[in-house]
């Protein structure tokens, strides 16, 4: 099937009189030469468009005019029956090119047929005319596809037909030119050139907007690392000669951003091998190396590295924080102070948790600016005064404009089971609207599921259905669920075997009636206005995806601070989207952990930041408990940055697929990584236990 044809018409402006010079030739053609062809003042070179698109750089003070000593001439030639361009190259050039534009959109990853009719007189030489497609970026042209290295000489018109397999597509931010390049003295007649695309191109299903053209998604979409990766790849050859350490550092940043710790580890190995003794290493990449070692669990390596790092002139906040956490003896630094002048909230918070003797003055001195200092104080008061503890949390909620304050009911081991909410102001949020389906997967959640469900049923938004599925629990989860069968909003399901939360999500999405979907975890508490607030944000922003944030609490009420000294994080579980979004970008990967991160990162890259609304408020209180997936042995993701090996390998492969595309990293490869790591789960059937409304 022929899907495209570019028949390059010959230049329009050429006359039978010789035009000595270069520039645009009409019809898209141009003639150009290497930047320094050693022209003398005797060589008269014209410039400008010659019609058809041919061009050559303008030489100041010289115009199109004849001169017998000119290094080349170009003219229309009608001496044969067929009209031709004649190019006379009369001296050696680094290159002299006859070029014509090709629309980038025409360059698909596909089989093409190119045909050329030409005549060529001159001595046989190794460096004869070349035919190629050039790619121009930032004014610099390089070979995109070599078609012929050395056209044979021929005194009669010669026809060539050649199939070429273009294995990459044109980029939207580059321009392309078909080109015949001369280097040696020769006389060349061009009669015709055609380029035919013979196939529709290979569709890259990760990149629908470029259907029929393969470009890696990072070159087409706004993934977090897209711009950096594009620049690194495009400049690799240059930068590895001029500033290799910078290139490797930036690539390491990309790998860490993608959470591709296997590649990060290899890059660290490369750095240590090549720059191990270079003082620049610590300053430029010290933190990145440290974070890599922490993430992959190389604790001893991290400790050794920190000792060196902190003995250097410029230890970082990060290295001091990690040193304190790992209890590495290093250069003394005042307690909880950091080199940047900030405070080490992470260790301060942890020390409060472990009942270390944290001075009241230390808190006064180090409490962070902004609303989160209330959370540090809440932690301080947790074991001293429950009233003060609550007061600080409620100060915080008020400071971040949450229209509720919390209270605590009678004592239970898990503080989230005691949380109750009291409105502090009237809600200016919708209570009715489209049906919102809330999906909840429960596995061995007998002790937490009740409060988790109640927090959804107590939402201020009225039109909710809750689909909750017991994922093959060994405990009494199913019994607890049965206590909710009387509520018409609750639909209860059971899985025939444990299959992980994301398989359950995929199932429940097929059962849900709502056009709006969101999720909730079996051990978390949603604030009463969570659904209404997210729905309203979706409407205001006219977006199809919205997410809120959360703060994490240990069972005893201790609030979890992260290494960057903050408490609040985006809450992936709170993601809310229209059914159409899931139909376009779903389903979730069939794994037991991190599939929501993969899904979200993909949305973020393809929908752009503006397409996703984030409510910068904690609308969920999350349990930081031993049963959380991030705390489960073998699947850990801790607050210092450690990532369990099984989690790492899947996340890395999924990230590579995200930036390189399914064409290169197939679904089979991603699932293969998950299976090898033991986190893949075969989807199992689910049955609805409540009366189905289908």
């Amino acid at each position, binding site marked *: 099937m022929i899907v495209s044809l570019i028949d390059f018409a010959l230049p329009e402006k050429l006359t039978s009189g010789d035009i000595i010079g270069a520039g645009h030739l009409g019809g898209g053609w141009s003639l150009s030469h290497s930047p320094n062809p050693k022209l003398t003042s005797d060589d008269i070179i014209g410039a400008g468009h010659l019609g058809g698109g041919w061009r050559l750089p303008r030489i100041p003070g010289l115009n199109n005019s004849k001169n017998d000593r000119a290094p080349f001439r170009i003219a229309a030639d009608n001496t044969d029956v067929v009209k031709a361009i004649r190019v006379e190259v009369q001296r050696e050039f680094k290159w002299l090119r006859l070029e014509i534009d090709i629309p980038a959109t025409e360059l698909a990853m596909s089989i093409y047929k190119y045909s050329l009719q030409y005549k060529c007189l001159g001595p046989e030489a190794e460096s004869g005319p070349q035919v190629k497609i050039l790619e121009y970026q930032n004014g610099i042209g390089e070979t995109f596809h070599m078609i012929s290295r050395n056209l044979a000489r021929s005194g009669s018109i010669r026809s060539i037909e050649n199939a070429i397999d273009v294995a990459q597509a044109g980029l939207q931010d580059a321009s392309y030119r078909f080109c015949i390049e001369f280097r040696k003295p020769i006389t060349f007649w061009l009669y015709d050139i055609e380029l035919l695309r013979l196939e529709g191109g290979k569709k890259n299903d990760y990149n629908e907007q470029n259907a029929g053209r393969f470009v890696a998604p990072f070159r087409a979409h706004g993934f977090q690392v897209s711009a950096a990766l594009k620049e690194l790849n495009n400049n690799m050859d240059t930068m590895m000669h001029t500033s290799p350490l910078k290139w490797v550092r930036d690539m390491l940043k990309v790998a860490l951003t993608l959470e591709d710790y296997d590649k990060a580890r290899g*890059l660290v190995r490369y750095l240590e091998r090549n720059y191990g003794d270079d003082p620049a290493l610590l300053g430029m990449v010290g933190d990145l190396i440290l974070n890599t070692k922490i993430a992959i669990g190389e604790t001893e390596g991290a400790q050794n590295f920190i000792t060196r790092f902190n003995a250097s002139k410029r230890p970082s906040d990060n290295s001091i924080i990690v040193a304190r956490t790992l209890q590495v003896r290093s250069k003394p630094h005042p307690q909880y102070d950091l080199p940047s002048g900030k405070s080490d909230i992470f260790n301060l918070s942890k020390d409060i948790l472990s009942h270390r003797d944290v001075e009241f003055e230390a808190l006064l001195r180090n409490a962070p600016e902004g609303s989160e200092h209330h959370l540090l104080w809440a932690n301080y008061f947790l074991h001293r005064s429950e009233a003060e503890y609550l007061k600080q949390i409620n100060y915080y909620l008020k400071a971040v404009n949450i229209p509720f304050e919390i209270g605590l009911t009678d004592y239970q081991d898990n503080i989230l089971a005691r949380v109750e909410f009291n409105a502090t102001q009237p809600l200016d949020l919708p209570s009715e609207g489209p049906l919102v389906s809330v999906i909840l997967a429960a596995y061995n959640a007998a002790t937490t599921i009740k409060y988790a469900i109640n927090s959804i049923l107590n939402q201020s938004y009225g039109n909710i259905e809750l689909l909750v599925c017991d994922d093959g629990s060994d405990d009494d989860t199913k019994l607890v669920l049965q206590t909710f069968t009387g509520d018409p909003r609750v639909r209860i399901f059971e899985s025939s075997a444990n299959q992980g939360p994301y398989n359950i999500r995929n199932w429940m999405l097929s059962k849900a009636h709502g056009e709006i979907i969101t999720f909730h975890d079996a051990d978390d508490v949603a604030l009463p206005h969570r659904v209404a607030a997210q729905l309203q944000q979706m409407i205001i922003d006219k977006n199809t995806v919205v997410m809120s944030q959360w703060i994490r609490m240990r069972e005893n009420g201790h609030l979890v601070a992260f290494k960057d000294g903050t408490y609040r994080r985006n809450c992936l579980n709170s993601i809310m989207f229209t059914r159409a979004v899931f139909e376009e970008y779903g389903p979730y990967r069939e794994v037991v952990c991190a599939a929501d991160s993969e899904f979200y990162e993909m949305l973020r890259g393809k929908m752009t930041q503006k397409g996703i609304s984030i409510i910068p408020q904690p609308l969920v209180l999350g349990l930081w408990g031993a049963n959380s997936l991030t705390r489960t042995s073998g699947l850990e993701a801790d607050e210092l940055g450690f990532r369990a090996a099984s989690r790492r390998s899947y996340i890395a492969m999924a990230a590579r697929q995200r930036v390189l595309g399914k064409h290169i990293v197939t679904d089979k490869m991603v699932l293969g990584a998950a299976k090898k790591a033991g986190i893949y789960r075969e989807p199992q059937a689910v049955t609805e236990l409540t009366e189905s409304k289908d």
Partner: protein
Amino acid sequence: MLVANVATYPGRYGTRRKALESIARQVDMLNIALNEYSKIPDDLLGLQNANFVFPEENLKDVGKFMFDVKKDDDVFLCDDDIIYPNDYVSWMRKVATGIQIPGFVLGLHGVTYSDYYDGRKRSGRLVHVFHHALASDEHVNQLGTGTVYTKGKNLPTLAQMHGSEGFVDIRFARLMFERDIPQICIARPAQWLKEVQNDQTLYLTVTSNLPTNALQEVQVFGGLNNLYT
């Protein structure tokens, strides 16, 4: 024994003799895979130490892997469009004695890929072209199999190379990587080796930059992260 392996085909008639002579005179045996031939072409008849083999199918550049070699043989993988200097074999062997890494492959055309390589030819690759100068030895992801020197024990089998026609360098590199055999691109002056120009347009052929399966193989071994294990 000093052995060189090369593959050729009719399209190289007229341009290959000089190239093959340049390596033949430096080795004990020059193994030549004659793709698309049923008899020895006349331009190769005078090569005294040549061992000609006619592949049953057109193996293209994989043909250079069809020969049996002994584990201790010094094997040079060559191309029929490169002029090898007179000291090529002796110099490569001399360099090998100075390298302190057990089990390695040496070469002159080296490629190191970006850690996220998307198949673009002019992007995401650091290429040490064989006829350009290189100041010092460099670990690379991939050596061009037209300029490789190694021991026979390291040479992949024909079965291992099967299906890599058009991207033998990539398959070879992947196999070396999987066996933890470092690939080192050695220092040399510019134009130590020279390329013979050929007209690729004489034949209706399909040339590919990089097929998908080759690109996927690059992902296995490519990137600076894979240079040192």
